[in-house]
């Protein structure tokens, strides 16, 4: 069977099965099994077991339950709601202040972890209930968290960045440095968008009743900042002073959350048990999807699903910018249904020689790649972030709402992609500074 046909069949059947309402994890495994038997041979079914084992023993994904537990403990202990109350009091003149504050918290979270599942699930647990309770539009709140949660891909530390650097054979440090400015630009774009939307339609983001809040009351509310700030400092501090690796820092964060809850008097066995069950539920959902995704990607690769796309690029003899555009389109398209690490392993080795041949900077291309990865995480219908967030949604909000919520933020990501395409200096300036500092 031709690779183009395989590609279309996989894409179509994925859509169809998903619409049936089957859980995503099992949709992916089912399709992988069917395509293995039909196109490869039943001997290859063992790959499903080996991918499962790999996810089960992944030292990288270990960060997920830790960050989710930290978030659950904080949420259940009331600390986060106090934080949002303070933001509400202080930001009440800023349209969409809570959502802007959420993007800021996402940015801090991004500096702690590069595991998208961990960040999105944690932020969904932390920020979503607080925003909804204050009457924020559910679509605005959801879009903010989904888009904000993917910032961790660009802002170091980031596993996807490390995998890209290893495959493209560029310096991890420079790739990390290259992601900082674009990450901040994206966060800025999200914030501006929220402010503008809230100004145009104040119903989307109701503000706290004004005037009658005294300065004393506002100052008193600052007390609620102390505990979250201490936790942020303990996590970021332990990463950046070399006390702990990013994964270990998550455990430090859990301890911080537990201590904070204890200080609030909310570290009860009931709260702990509930937080543990929340954590288990969210982690299990993410990990089973990861298993499905990994099995699916390996079968997709083994049966040559992307061969025609990749050889098309290889043989393209046109203007370098058109080739670049074609490569970005392929990345976005594959991102519709593959996971990012799989795309890196599949595409980067094919793209790198082309990148070098046309004289593009692989670090700059890496940042473009990471932005398309962020897009892939939130593009319907298979954006993994959308599924993660759905796992922590309150009753009554369906996938359709999530899909609609994400579209404007997808638009913002696309404009960021175009911006960095047109102005490569925004990306390369910081890593260049770094290498100059290192050589002198």
């Amino acid at each position: 069977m031709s690779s183009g046909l395989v590609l279309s069949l996989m894409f179509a059947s994925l859509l169809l099965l998903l619409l049936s309402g089957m859980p995503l994890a099992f949709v992916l495994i089912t399709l992988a099994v069917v395509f293995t038997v039909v196109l490869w041979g039943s001997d290859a079914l063992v790959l499903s077991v080996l991918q499962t084992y790999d996810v089960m023993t992944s030292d990288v994904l270990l960060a997920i339950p830790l960050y989710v537990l930290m978030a659950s403990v904080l949420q259940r202990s009331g600390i986060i709601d106090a934080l949002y109350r303070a933001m509400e009091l202080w930001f009440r003149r800023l349209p969409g202040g809570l959502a802007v504050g959420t993007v800021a918290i996402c940015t801090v979270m991004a500096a702690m972890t590069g595991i998208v599942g961990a960040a999105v699930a944690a932020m969904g647990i932390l920020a979503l209930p607080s925003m909804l309770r204050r009457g924020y539009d559910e679509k605005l709140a959801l879009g903010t968290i989904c888009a904000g949660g993917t910032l961790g891909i660009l802002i170091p530390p980031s596993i996807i960045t490390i995998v890209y650097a290893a495959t493209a054979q560029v310096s991890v440090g420079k790739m990390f440095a290259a992601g900082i400015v674009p990450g901040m630009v994206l966060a800025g774009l999200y914030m501006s968008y929220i402010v503008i939307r809230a100004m145009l339609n104040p119903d989307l983001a109701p503000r706290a009743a004004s005037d009658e809040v005294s300065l004393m009351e506002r100052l008193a509310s600052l007390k609620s900042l102390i505990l979250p700030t201490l936790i942020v400092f303990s996590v970021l501090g332990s990463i950046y002073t070399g006390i702990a690796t990013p994964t270990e820092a998550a455990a430090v964060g859990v301890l911080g959350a537990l201590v904070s809850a204890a200080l609030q008097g909310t570290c009860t066995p009931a709260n702990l048990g509930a937080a543990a069950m929340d954590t288990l539920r969210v982690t299990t959902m993410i990990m089973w999807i990861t298993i499905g995704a990994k099995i699916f990607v390996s079968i997709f690769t083994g049966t040559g699903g992307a061969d025609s796309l990749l050889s098309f690029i290889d043989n393209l003899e046109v203007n370098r910018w058109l080739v670049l555009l074609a490569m970005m389109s392929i990345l976005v398209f594959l991102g519709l249904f593959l996971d990012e690490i799989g795309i890196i392993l599949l595409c980067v080795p094919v793209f790198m020689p082309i990148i070098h041949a046309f004289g593009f900077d692989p670090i700059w291309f890496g940042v473009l790649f990471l932005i398309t990865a962020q897009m892939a995480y939130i593009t319907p219908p298979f954006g993994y972030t959308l599924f993660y967030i759905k796992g922590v949604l309150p009753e009554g909000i369906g996938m359709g709402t999530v899909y609609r919520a994400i579209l404007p933020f997808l638009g913002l990501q696309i404009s960021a992609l175009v911006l960095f395409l047109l102005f490569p200096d925004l990306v390369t300036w910081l890593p260049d500074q770094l290498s100059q500092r290192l050589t002198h």
Partner: protein
Amino acid sequence: QENPEVSWRMQALWDAGTTPYEFEQKFVARVAELTDGKFTIRLFGGGQLVPSSGAFEAVRGGAFELMKTFDGYEAGAIPAFAFTSTVPFGFPESDQYEAWFYERGGLDMAREAYAQAGLFYIAPTVYGQEPIHATFPIHSLDDIKGKKGRFVGLSSAVMGAFGVSTTPLPTAEVYQALEKGVIDFADRGDLTANLEAGLDEVANYVIVPGFHQPTTATSYVANQRAYDRLPDAYKAALETAAREISVSLRQHIVAQDAVALEAFEERGVNVIHLEPEVITEGRREAVDAWRQAAGDNELAKRVLQSQVAFMQELGLLD
């Protein structure tokens, strides 16, 4: 009689696009050439079908027919593999290690080890050392006592015996862990790969040869059933191509190491060449850790015995 068309899948050990992967491309091209284009092997990069450490079970189950692997991944199940992949303080010259395979029965013992899993060991690819990257100078083995290091497998046990606190960080975290001082020194990949990953930015010292991995053997391993179905000419083609790749990759690395070391020095990194006596002294002490790793496994003990005997023959051990 006309030989049939055969088409196999193979997963390489390294990511597509890396230098060792290019040599696997040469390997499959050579096999095709030796069989008049009738034996074609479709090559996948490391991790593309299954994580490299899972390739063993995948080939055993017949998902694909051939893999390039690092025997050490399975040493926890088949202890002999600790010695057919890389031995800390082991053979200092790749020629010596390869000679053990071809002149002292190593090949047969490796085949015996794989046969129990329904796999056929075709041939090793033997090459030289991998470096150590450190944030402090190392001139003798006393210098590493009490330091924190990232090592995996047998070398973590051996380093432990020299007073190192080892921690098995994932490869992806090595850069950051060195940068932030979570660890003081680490093994990661070969000189060129580490240069490309920018380890010069986070560790000021490169120590060669890396005593934790003075020589390395990776292996071409096939599913036994699939292998048995091959015409003799194809089997011979696999072996011939494998042996050619072993030589050419090794020589490529020798040349490339020199380039990489110079690049490290240009970037302000101190390259420390350890005195041979340091390694010799370490080898004497490491023998105990080797014996412990072999445990009471009959084949592992036999493999180790044969390596020790050859090392004595070569004057590497008393």
